[in-house]
């Protein structure tokens, strides 16, 4: 198709040829084309098939208010062809069974529409019950628009930004541009978001206003206080000035789409209007399109919408478009205007000048044709007269509807305004200002003035003194033409069956009537019942007509309210929302060497740690090496804290169950923290550094919340103490095994003999020149040293130890080996041997609790008192299998004895004991020594395993090895 040439408003670059594929055919487009305009220019008229009835659908609007033109583009489903720039090599495919234009094997569905009234599915397919699963499968197959392959990998680059501004202006039309300018001129920083690729809004494509749009756009571009994002649709507004949007990138950008989160003090909403569809028979036939669509198609893309057109409009922009398009070469057969009066006489004169028949108080009542429009019937609004016109295009629009999504999302109620026929906010949300067409203004000067005023209002809201300028702006606005009386016509005077209120869901006016008759009397409920407005068009088509139609129905008693707006206001790719999605994990200073040693790395909370050092899941070799020789483990993730200050001891008394006054320098003390329910939440060791100066460790999982916990539980006390989280400041290396002293002796001058550095003591010394704090702990039940080393030295210390341990055959061990060994010792890991409801008593650690410190109001102490002798609780026990040759039961298997009476926490094969051992939480009636535990593993087919309760620890019960 030849494009119109030499229009100043054109947005295409004729010299810039783009080739793309549509349904396998190579087509040519021009630079600046969207996929939709390129297809239209290539003669494509049927863009898709409707969801339910498979009706042919064409280009209707250009801003993506409905699913008519959703395509599969480069394997991405449901892409809006109207808002996607065509690119070289793009592969465009139609969706929903449209194999070739004009033929659809499911086209007969349309003829069956009578059998599918609103709520159809609720009434059928459930009798007899067995047909439902079959029907459900068929419904699933028929539903859905696009196709996504499960192995689809989204190409492209996605990132995110979080800019700040004083004012965020939504919409780069004349009102938004003026708002941005007046706010920026007041000294405020402004962010302007515009969904189209260029600024100018509805000035941009109009012959007399185009130059003004360009002028404003230039002024904005030159203003350093205004940051403009074009191609950036707003997707959400939230309270407190948060606006989310995304931007489509161009070739020059480093992203394909970028998620934007703007934080601004004030928001100016200048999103303008979309057109309100006219409801008549076959109102969505290919060939029926909106005024702005037809007009912009010609003015911005140089494409005439058809050859012979009928206009059925309800506003002056429709008249202007008819005149302009006629001048550009469209044969305008006639113009019907639903308004009896109120038209701009100048425009009426222009129509007469061109001998275009003009029908006041007339409206389209029926469109005819199948794949293409053949004729249109117009009728008088009262229904008395009717005339038919042959044409290939019907340009139809009932009126305007403001794009009030950003305001409605700001949690305000919308009410119907009789004069404009708009839903307008009852009150503007805090710090939000509206300007331009969405207020009902239509006069270009008024729109600009309202924008200027809104910009100043935003400045005033930011606390600037602009009162004088504001009142001047207000006076200026008041002197200009005010809001325009809107068309209130809800429905053309026809009894049509196929007047579509929602294109996406194929919801007809008749369906709405059916819903009303069934007692669904609110737009929101009708939306749920008929699905109207729940389609991919995000309610753009039915958003205004549904409540208006419901209100005009006799059954509706309440106040007219539109259905709820929901973010995202336009559909947003999951990839775009995900943005950069940086993966932030913590690594210890030994990460690289652990990995190099073959460590199988896993996430453990925020950390990445080595589970084992071989593919063998039980890590048996690692266990045996520690038991018989010496092993080395990276324990750096352990929580580490210093607490100091006059009230440090008090704070520890509050959170630890033991009496912290008994912690002495040089020795460690093991204790636990409980929550108020008496449930154990953490354990670790406390060492004393000096008077009211302590160093303590926590479990890895709790390290991030320990300071918070202690501060929380002392928040009313005004105690003077300081906590420093030193978790990352120290690497921790655990040297364990009977030969560990031999390794240590080689590399330190300190006396590390059992006499001068016995079990449960802590010593500071140097290994080579590296300062360490060494603790003698026995978590794995062997002679063991835990070295706390400044994190920058951790790798060096590791290397020193490795070197020293080489001749003994020292090896790495990981969490799995540690787990087995501590189990053999009967040591618990919280979360593994405990759950939410497990108290200190339940887990057998009641001895840690010091009951004579009530004055400290120790967290959990009251519950520990209440539950100390409580029956019927799950208690932790050790068990061995009745058949020692049995495999260890699987972790998590219930103890089932008529009913579930507990479960296996951890069970492993113990090499040292040559049999499986385990710990379980069981009801106290089963907790006695010698009790039989029937274990029900998943998929055991009813064959239980039997264990018996035995005392713990299983291994080295006197603790000779760890104290040696």
């Amino acid at each position, binding site marked *: 198709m030849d494009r119109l040439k030499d229009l100043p408003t054109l947005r295409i670059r004729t010299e810039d040829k783009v080739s793309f594929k549509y349904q396998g055919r190579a087509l040519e487009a021009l630079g600046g084309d969207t996929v939709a305009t390129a297809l239209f220019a290539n003669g494509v008229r049927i863009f898709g098939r409707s969801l339910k009835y498979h009706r042919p659908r064409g280009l209707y609007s250009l801003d993506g208010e409905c699913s008519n033109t959703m395509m599969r583009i480069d394997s991405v*489903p*449901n892409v809006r062809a109207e808002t996607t720039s065509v690119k070289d090599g793009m592969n465009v495919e139609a969706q929903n069974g449209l194999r070739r234009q004009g033929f659809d094997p499911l086209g007969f569905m349309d003829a069956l529409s009578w*059998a599918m*009234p609103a709520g159809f*599915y*609720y009434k*059928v397919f*459930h009798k007899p019950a067995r047909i*439902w699963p079959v029907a*459900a499968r068929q*419904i*699933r197959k028929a*539903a*859905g628009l*696009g*196709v*996504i*392959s499960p*192995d*689809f*990998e*989204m190409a492209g680059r996605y990132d995110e930004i979080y800019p700040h501004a004083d004012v965020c202006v939504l919409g780069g039309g004349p009102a938004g541009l003026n708002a941005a300018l007046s706010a920026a001129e007041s000294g405020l920083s402004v962010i302007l978001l515009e969904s189209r690729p260029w600024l100018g809004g509805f000035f941009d494509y109009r012959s007399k206003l185009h130059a003004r749009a360009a002028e404003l756009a230039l002024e904005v571009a030159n203003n350093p206080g205004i940051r403009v994002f074009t191609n950036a649709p707003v997707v*959400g507004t939230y309270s407190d000035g*948060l606006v989310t949007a995304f931007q489509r990138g161009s070739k020059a950008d480093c992203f394909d789409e970028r998620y934007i989160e703007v934080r601004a003090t004030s928001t100016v909403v200048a999103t303008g209007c979309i057109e309100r569809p006219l409801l008549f028979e076959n109102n969505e036939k290919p060939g029926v399109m909106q005024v702005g669509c037809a007009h912009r198609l010609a003015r911005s893309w140089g494409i005439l919408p058809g050859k012979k057109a009928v206009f059925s409009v309800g506003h002056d922009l429709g008249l202007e478009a008819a005149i302009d398009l006629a001048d550009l070469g469209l044969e305008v057969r006639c113009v019907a205007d639903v308004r009896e009066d109120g038209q701009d006489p100048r425009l009426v004169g222009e129509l007469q000048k061109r001998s275009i028949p003009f029908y006041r108080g007339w409206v389209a009542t029926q469109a005819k044709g199948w794949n293409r429009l053949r004729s249109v019937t117009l009728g008088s609004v009262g229904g008395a007269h009717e005339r038919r016109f042959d044409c290939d295009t019907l340009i139809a629009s009932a009126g305007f509807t403001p794009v009030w999504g950003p305001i409605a999302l700001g949690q305000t109620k919308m009410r119907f305004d009789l004069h404009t026929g708009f839903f307008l906010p009852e009150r503007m949300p805090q710090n939000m200002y509206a300007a331009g067409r969405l207020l009902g203004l239509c006069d270009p000067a008024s729109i600009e003035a309202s924008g200027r005023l809104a910009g100043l209002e935003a400045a005033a809201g930011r606390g600037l003194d602009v009162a004088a300028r504001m009142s001047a702006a207000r006076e200026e606005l008041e002197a200009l033409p005010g809001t325009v009386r809107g068309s209130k016509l809800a429905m053309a005077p026809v009894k049509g069956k196929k007047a579509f209120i929602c294109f996406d869901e194929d919801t007809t006016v008749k369906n709405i009537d059916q819903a009303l*008759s*069934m007692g669904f009397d609110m737009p929101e409920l009708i939306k*749920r*019942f008929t699905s109207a407005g729940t*389609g*991919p068009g995000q309610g753009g088509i039915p958003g205004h007509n549904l409540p208006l139609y419901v209100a005009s129905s006799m059954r509706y008693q309440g106040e007219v309210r539109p259905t709820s707006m929901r*973010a*995202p206001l336009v*559909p947003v790719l*999951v*990839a*775009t*929302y*995900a*943005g950069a999605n940086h*993966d932030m*994990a913590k690594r210890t200073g030994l990460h690289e060497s652990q990995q190099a040693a073959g460590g199988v790395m896993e*996430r453990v909370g925020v950390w990445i740690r080595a589970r084992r050092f071989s593919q063998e899941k039980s890590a048996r070799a690692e266990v045996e090496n520690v038991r018989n020789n010496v092993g080395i483990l990276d324990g750096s993730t352990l929580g580490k804290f210093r607490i100091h200050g006059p009230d440090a001891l008090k704070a520890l008394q509050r959170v630890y169950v033991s009496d912290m006054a008994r912690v002495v320098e040089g020795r460690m003390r093991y204790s636990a923290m409980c*929550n108020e*329910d008496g*449930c154990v939440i953490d354990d670790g060791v406390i060492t004393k550094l000096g008077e009211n100066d302590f160093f303590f460790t926590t479990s890895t999982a709790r390290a991030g919340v320990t300071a*918070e916990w202690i501060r929380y539980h002392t928040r009313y006390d005004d105690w003077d103490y300081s906590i420093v989280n030193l978790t990352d400041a120290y690497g921790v290396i655990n040297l364990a095994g009977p030969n560990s002293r031999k390794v240590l002796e080689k590399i330190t001058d300190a006396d590390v003999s059992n006499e001068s550095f016995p079990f449960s003591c802590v010593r500071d010394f140097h290994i080579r020149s590296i300062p360490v704090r060494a603790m003698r702990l026995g978590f794995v039940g062997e002679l063991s040293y835990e070295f706390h080393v400044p994190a920058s030295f951790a790798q060096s210390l590791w290397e020193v130890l490795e070197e020293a341990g080489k001749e003994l055959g020292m090896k790495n061990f990981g969490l799995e080996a540690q787990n087995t060994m501590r189990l053999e010792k009967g040591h618990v890991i919280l979360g593994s041997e405990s*759950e*939410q*409801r497990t108290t200190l008593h339940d887990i057998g650690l009641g001895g840690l609790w010091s009951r004579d410190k009530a004055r400290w109001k120790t967290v959990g102490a009251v519950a520990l008192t209440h539950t100390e002798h409580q029956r*019927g609780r799950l208690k932790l026990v050790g068990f061995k299998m009745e058949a020692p040759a049995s495999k260890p039961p699987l*972790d*998590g*298997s*219930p103890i*089932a004895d008529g009913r*579930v009476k507990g479960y296996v926490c951890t069970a492993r094969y113990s090499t040292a004991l040559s049999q499986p051992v385990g710990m379980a939480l069981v009801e106290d009636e089963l907790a006695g020594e010698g009790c039989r535990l029937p274990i*029900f*593993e*998943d*998929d055991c087919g009813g064959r239980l395993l039997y264990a018996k309760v035995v005392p713990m620890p299983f291994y080295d019960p006197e603790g000779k090895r760890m104290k040696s």
Partner: protein
Amino acid sequence: MFWRSKRLWREPGSLKSSYDAVIIGGGLHGLATAYFLARHHGMTDIAVIEKNYIGFGGAGRNTAIVRANQRTQENLPLYKEALELWPVLTRELDFNLMFYNCGNLNLAHSDAAIKAMRLQVASAQYSGIDIKLVDPRECKELIPALDISDRPRYPVFGGMFHPPGGIVRHDAVVWGLARGASKCGVDIHQNTEVTGIAVSGGRVVGVDTGRGRIHTSRVLNSAGGYSAAISSGMLGIRLPISVLTIQAMVTQPLKPFLDHVVSSGMYHCYANQTLKGEVATGAHMDPWPNYTTQCTGHYIKHQAEALSELLPCLRGVKFMRHWAGLADMTPDMAPIMDGNDHIRGYYMNCGWGYFGFKSSTVAGKYMARFISTGECPDILKPFALNRFEQHRLMGETAALVSYSADN
């Protein structure tokens, strides 16, 4: 031909001055209780009073997933029966509730999670519920869109597959129960807000509403997110409940590619494809109490980040609609079903958190028995309120509470 264009439920007109029982809340629990009372216990003089329209709250905001793989044996039979009730009610109500029995896959991303799942699976199996542990390869067979490689930050270690679960059309349940209850004589008063509960001599004597006093000797508080506020504000009974926002969203409709409900605790994410083809997803809660049902930008972004790793093909799919509802959370994530105790005639069914949909019909069934007889059925006894003061939390959450200052 199919169509009888009749109202689904009666417009009851004016509020009567007395009813045998008043049910606060026209959500699923309230409607189900009314239905069972009227249909199975012969108590038909019942008013359901609803501040908005029926199904306005959690009933219409959940993502309609049903399953019976709870953790404890107190919960298991209840949810099992709930699952078995869908086809029964579809028949009884003569209304297609569209129970789509697609099965649920829960993913585990660590050995510890596998262990926790084994307890859940084996306990459920022991209670006669169909469920099994599956390995990553089987997960992939069930959900071809799943990424089981080591690319995600939390790779898939396995999962549990629960064939009897699925999804139900939540609005259909609301409308079907309303129609069923209404047919039996229950009056459903929409746009009627409770303003007080009148108690005299330790007995319920009436309910005050925006439209006047109703004399009654029995009242059920099943007001979902507002139950705790009603309880503490109108009766001075404070409950161990926090009312949190839970958000969910759907993508644009797609041809079927996700055949089961899939969920991951680690990613705080579940996804299922509705009969319309939309992928419904959600899971996380905003951890501060509020009654706004507002959505947040933070949340939808989080969800996109999670789905990008879990089901990477969804990166090419667009989110379309995002909404929120209220969840009344108890410390042990199990409900409070109790009553007729300190105040005779006062019953409560609340604290369901985000399990309120799947359990609604069975809770209604047993609450109806409770209300009609005044005797708590055995199956509900573990859900008594006093478990919190007796330090006997239910253990429905496997994990240690990672941290929650207010509990």
